[in-house]
Every structure is written in structure tokens, then in C-alpha cells.
């Protein structure tokens, strides 16, 4: 059959060209992602240092955990898993991710609901809401550092004239408030992203559902609880997972707003400190590897749970 022959020849040549077209992208991703990740994991099992990377030797799990016997019947655990500063940064990261994502979800939902209404000037409001998202993280950290300044900051001035505080607070410098400052900036900056994702979910809810509820005289709050919320839940969940993964690797805001304090040091900051500032390249790589593991686990769980539709075929 000449016709099927021609067709299979065509499809074979198309498959060949498919791989040809994919090759540049795949090679690039291999060199910038897969290979470096593999090397990071390898370094975490070696004694690599910044200057002697190529001479790194395998040392097993010493960077993670090692028991050193002092010989007199006493000994001590060393390594990442025995480092109190590491666990402090794990705790900081989890605290940061939980609190920031919770607030962003609530505020994002409120803004999305407001933007979902028809009103005059809506396009303007939506553009205004996007501004914090568009400002570079470093710039927002600096802007807020100035607003939170202990002596000349406008936040202290506002709070004092409102009677909320009686004396100026050193927001970023004091260990008690440093985390609050970081959270404030992050929530301000990332709520727009959350709001947009939830708004997109809201816009997919068919309008006639509301019409029906309105005709039946169902109170607005119950319509929201019983109709809107369940319908937008998938969109909210996706947004929460996206943001949580992002929050777990937070670096910029903490590094710029509150440098060098135990109160806010996150896993990423801890890892980079060891890699490039303390010349503990292998040790820092171990921290990076652990952070990667945590995020990979969450991602895989999420993909399994939602069975993401990748082939473009709807079940």
C-alpha cells in the first residue's frame, strides 16, 4: 500500500525532526539544571572547597552527620544534622513559608473577590494591584527598609500617631521583629500574584450559578461558602502550592532586609553563607541538597495528588 507507506515515512521523518527541534532546549536544560544539581549532590559527599573543587574527595556522609570519639569515652556529633544553626534556619524557613502563604491566600482572596465585581475604574485598580509584583524584590526590600527605619521611618511615625506603639521600633535590627518585617515585605510583594491566580479561578465559574442563587434569595455569605469557595478551591490550591514552593527557597528579601541574624536566616541563606562566605563549600552543598529534597518531595506529592494533565487529553 503506497499510501500508508508514504504516511509512515512522513511520520518517521517528523519524529526525527521532533528530536532535532528538542535537542537545543534539552541540551541547555541539561547543562544549566540537571548536571549542576548532580554536581551539588556529589559535592555534598566530598571535602570540596571553593578553590579546590576538582580535587574533591569522597568523604561519605560526614557533612551531614559524623560522630567523633574523643577517645576518653566521650564524643560529639558533628555535621549539618547536628548543627543548631541549621535547624534554626529550617524552623525560620517553615515559619516564614506558613505565615506568609496563609496571609497571602486570605488577602489574595479578598482582592480577587473585589476585582471580580464590575465597577468603574476596575482596570485601574487591577493595574495598581500589580505594581508590588513588578517591583524587583531587592528594590522592595530597600524601599521597606527605609520605611521601617527606626529613626526616620514612616511606619514608626504612622503607628505612633495612631497610638499603636509608644516608642519607635527597630524593625529590621531587633531579633524580635526582624521576622515580622520580612513577612510584611513578602506578603505585600506577593499577594498580587495570589490574587491574580485566584481571580482567574473565579472567572471560570459560570455566571448562571450566581443568577440561580440570587433568584432563590440565598444570602451572599452562604453563596460564597457553599458555591464559590468549593468551585475555586482547585485554583486556590494550585496557587498555594506554587507560592509555598517559592517561599521555601526564599533568599533575596532575607539577605537584603535583615542580613546576618539568627532570627531570620533561612535554609537558602544558610547554604549560600557556607558556600561562598565561610568557605565550607561541601557543607553548603549538603544544605542545598537537603533543601532540594524537601522541595522535590512536596512537588512529587502534589503532582501525584492532582494527576496533572500533561498530554493535553482531558479525562
Amino acid at each position, binding site marked *: 500500500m503506497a499510501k500508508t507507506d508514504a504516511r509512515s515515512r512522513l511520520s518517521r521523518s*517528523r519524529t526525527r525532526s521532533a528530536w532535532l527541534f528538542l535537542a537545543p*532546549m534539552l541540551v541547555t536544560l541539561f547543562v544549566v539544571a540537571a548536571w549542576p544539581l548532580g554536581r551539588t549532590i556529589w559535592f555534598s559527599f566530598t571535602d570540596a572547597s571553593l578553590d579546590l573543587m576538582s580535587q574533591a574527595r569522597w568523604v561519605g556522609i560526614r557533612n551531614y552527620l559524623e560522630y567523633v570519639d574523643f577517645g576518653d569515652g566521650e564524643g560529639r556529633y558533628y555535621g549539618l544534622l547536628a548543627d543548631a544553626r541549621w535547624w534554626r534556619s529550617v524552623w525560620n524557613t517553615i515559619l516564614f513559608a506558613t505565615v506568609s502563604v496563609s496571609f497571602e491566600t486570605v488577602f489574595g482572596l479578598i482582592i480577587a473577590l473585589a476585582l471580580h465585581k464590575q465597577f468603574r475604574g476596575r482596570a485601574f485598580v487591577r493595574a495598581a494591584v500589580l505594581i508590588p509584583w*513588578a517591583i524587583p524584590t531587592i528594590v522592595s526590600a530597600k524601599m521597606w527598609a527605609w520605611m521601617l527605619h527606626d529613626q526616620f521611618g514612616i511606619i514608626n511615625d504612622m503607628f505612633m500617631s495612631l497610638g499603636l506603639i509608644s516608642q519607635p521600633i527597630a524593625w529590621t535590627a531587633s531579633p524580635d521583629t526582624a521576622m515580622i518585617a520580612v513577612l510584611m515585605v513578602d506578603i505585600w510583594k506577593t499577594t498580587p500574584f495570589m490574587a491574580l491566580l485566584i481571580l482567574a479561578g473565579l472567572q471560570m465559574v459560570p455566571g448562571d450559578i450566581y443568577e440561580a442563587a440570587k433568584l432563590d434569595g440565598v444570602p451572599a455569605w452562604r453563596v460564597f461558602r457553599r458555591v464559590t469557595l468549593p468551585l475555586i478551591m482547585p485554583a486556590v490550591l494550585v496557587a498555594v502550592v506554587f507560592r509555598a514552593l517559592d517561599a521555601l527557597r526564599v533568599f533575596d528579601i532575607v539577605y537584603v532586609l535583615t542580613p546576618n541574624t539568627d532570627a531570620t536566616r533561612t535554609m537558602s541563606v544558610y547554604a549560600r553563607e557556607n558556600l561562598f562566605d565561610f568557605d565550607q563549600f561541601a557543607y553548603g552543598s549538603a544544605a542545598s541538597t537537603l533543601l532540594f529534597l524537601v522541595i522535590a518531595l512536596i512537588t512529587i506529592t502534589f503532582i501525584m495528588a492532582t494527576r496533572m494533565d*500533561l498530554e493535553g487529553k482531558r479525562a
Partner: protein
Amino acid sequence: MKPPLWQTVGFYALVGIIVLQAVFPFYYAILTSLEDGQALFEVNYLPKALNFANYQAMLSTGVFGKQILNSVFVATVVVILSLFLAVTAAFALSRIQFRGRGLLLLTVLSVSMFPQIAVLSGLFEVIRYFGLFNSLWSLVFSYMIFTLPFTVWVLTTFMRNLPVEIEEAAIMDGASSFTIIRRVFLPLMWPAMVTTGLLAFIHAWNEFLFALTFLSTDSQRTVPVAIALISGRSEFEIPWGNIMAASVIVTLPLVALVLVFQRKIVSGLTAGAVKG
């Protein structure tokens, strides 16, 4: 049926608060950047001065100008390169049936979940190996890790939704795949390409961790790192006016982009999440 007055008032009050909190910090940065000397250290809610000394101080040094050009160069090349690599890949992923396609797309997408810090030590080695340390190309190269997965994903979804008929005629005429991409798809793709290009540009413009690690001299730095490293001789001499002026300079283009391309950016941001 009109809603009661208190509801309308309450709603507009809420909208007012939303707008105010979103805009105020940037407004205050502009206001601060226009103050100088003693005025800087008084808390003002409304503009009092119109003094461009801070802008002059930043732009006259020359280094900051060079750093802006660095950022423009990196972001532009990143956009061009990732769009080129992604369009060809998206064509294969969306229009050609072959085994392992779904798994491949999943792998590409999973790269966007990589924390940057997890590849940092490995990338540092690669960049030194290629002799790219302290070169802007180190950033062009490393930024592919976050622009490519996203761009490939959005363009693949977009291409998949284009009807089959449009390329059938071209295949009948014996056009090669490359010609099909160039003549048939590119003209249809520009909305999706503008969206992904904009997001890639913004991402590259704002990136901090790689830029902090892979560049070591002032004249090579990009603007986020430059701003982060502006400091005075002591904690009490931090030049806040200069920092705010620099911040406004690097943010204005982004705010302009967002205002002009609002719809495109919103559709791009939500594309990955909602369709997933």
C-alpha cells in the same frame, strides 16, 4: 435591585485601601528620592521638594549607567534566546506525536521547581570551567534554568490549541518543519510570545542570587545587586536618597511595562497554573 448604600460605601472603601497599600511604598520611594539633605530625615507624607540631586549623584558616576546597560543586555539576550529555544521545542512537543512526550514535558516543567540554591555550587563549577565567571554571559546562560521551562510550557499549551488544518496544507505542499514553524506558526504565535517574553524579561531583570554569585566587579554587576550593595561608610551614613533614586530608575520601566501590557502579563501568569 440596588444594594444598600452602606454596602457600596464599604466596597469602595475596601478598593481604596487595596489601591493605597499597593501604591504607597513606591510613591514614598519617589518622594524620598526627590528629597535631599535635611529634608530626607523628616517624615513627609506629601511631596515637599523637587530636587533631582540624588538622580544626578547616581547617574553622574558612570558605573550605575553601565550597570543599567548590563541589565538591559542580559534581560534582552535571555528573552531572545529562550524564545528561540522554546518555540522550536514547543513545536515538537505540541504538534508531533512521539513516545515519551508527556514524560518529557513533565521533566521540563519539574526544572522550574528547582530551588536556585540547589544548583548554585554545580553551576559555579560549570561557569568557571567555561571561563564565564564575572562575564555577563554567565547570567544569560544560567537564567535559562527559570525562563526555559516556563516559556516551553506556555508556548506548548498555546500551540496545542491551534487547529490542525493550518499546517496540513503546508505539509501537503511539502514544506519542511522549519518552514512550517516560520511561515505558519510564528505569525499566529506572537501574542503568546509577547506574554512569555515579557515575563522572562521581568524575571531576568529582577534576579539576584546568580547575579550576586557569578559577577565580582562593580562594572559587571546588574542593577539589583548594585542597589543591594550601595552602602555608606557606617550604618548611619547609608545614602537613602541615592538608593531610592536608583530604585525608582530601575523600577519605572517595569511599572510602565506592567501598565501597558497588563492583560498579557495576567494571562501569562495564570496560564501555567490554571491550565495545569
